[in-house]
């Protein structure tokens, strides 16, 4: 570009590069599987350390993807009695339990009007592949109420295609309010002990009020029940990232 005087334009230094340290940001936000966090108790932390080493060993050989309660998974397991020696089951994860190597997750699906639930062990050598078809969270940590909900909320197509998802996107929270079958239910889900937000209760007002009789509002202030996992989590995250890089 020629300026009005005929002289060359004034030197403009390039803009300073903005350094965004993505690595530390990523590490803070990265998902830590809940079975790594040791339960509150008086056992020797050495036991959990040894278990974690075994879990990391297994994860190096077999990748366990990130998933939450409410995401749809497809699991292929080895079975000597199945044709082709392996069987595939698609379902929504309704519960993640257990700590350490015995961590389990329960998948639920309705096949031919029959509700089926299978409890899989995450670190079992019989599992050949875990595929996340739809990664999403729900309003609750435990979706056991799907057993008493209308079957349409638990049916998932066996040949479902994985829903594409961009990396670095927030995990979507499905704010679905599920409609239930008429009472009696397997558990009284309207009671505050279960603290369920994902059900559309169509019960009369006096029933909802009567259920609040069993509320224990002092529980959230109970100091002996507090379990702050932030420091433990940070330590375990560091350990994991070191081990997985080796």
């Amino acid at each position, binding site marked *: 570009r020629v300026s009005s005087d005929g002289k060359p334009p004034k030197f403009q230094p390039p803009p300073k590069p903005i350094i965004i340290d993505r690595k530390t940001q990523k590490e803070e936000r990265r998902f830590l599987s809940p079975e790594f966090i040791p339960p509150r108790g008086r056992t020797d932390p050495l036991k959990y350390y040894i278990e974690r080493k075994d879990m990391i060993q297994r994860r190096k050989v077999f990748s366990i993807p990130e998933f939450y309660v409410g995401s749809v998974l497809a699991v292929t*397991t080895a*079975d000597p*009695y*199945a044709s082709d020696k392996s*069987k595939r*089951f698609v379902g929504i994860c309704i519960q993640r339990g257990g700590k350490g190597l015995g961590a*389990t997750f329960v998948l639920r699906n309705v*096949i*031919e*009007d*029959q*509700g*089926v*639930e*299978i*409890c*899989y*062990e995450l670190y*079992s050598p*019989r599992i050949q592949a875990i595929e996340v078809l739809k990664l999403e969270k729900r309003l609750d940590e435990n979706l056991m109420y799907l*057993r008493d909900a209308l079957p349409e909320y638990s049916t998932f197509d066996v040949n479902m295609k994985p829903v594409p998802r961009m990396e670095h996107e927030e995990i979507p929270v499905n704010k679905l309010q599920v409609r*239930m079958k*008429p*009472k*009696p239910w*397997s558990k009284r889900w309207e009671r505050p002990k279960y603290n369920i937000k994902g059900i559309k209760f*169509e*019960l*009369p007002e006096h029933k909802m009020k009567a259920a609040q009789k069993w509320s224990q509002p002092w529980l959230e202030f109970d100091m002996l029940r507090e379990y702050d996992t932030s420091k433990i989590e940070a330590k375990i995250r560091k350990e994991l990232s070191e081990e997985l890089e080796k």
Partner: protein
Amino acid sequence: SAVIQRQFSITGACQAIQKLTRVRVVDNSTLGNTPYHRPPKCIHVYNKTGVGKVGDKILLAIKGEKKKALIVGHKMPGPTMTPRFDSNNVVLIEDNGNPIGTRIKTPIPYTLRRREGEFSKVLAIARNFV
């Protein structure tokens, strides 16, 4: 909309299938599918313990007659990696092991395949496996 309450009580899953459990017949036999004012109930379990799990034979009382049946799924959670069904499923069977129905639409657990010799005919009419 008001929630209609059904006038019966259900017990939670206690011990899989035992005497007096109401079961659901899963095959397409006439005896199992014709409606009756009483649900089919178990009256005896052919087992050392009185508790029937998947693959055990039981005696059912259906429509006023006694019939043997094979348990193909129960509400009680079993060993991990095995399926747990939302209803106690049963397939009507003769004394020699031949199934009475001709088709089983509901899914059957793969663990029944272990006893291929006894249940080969039942497995042959099953469509879906879980």
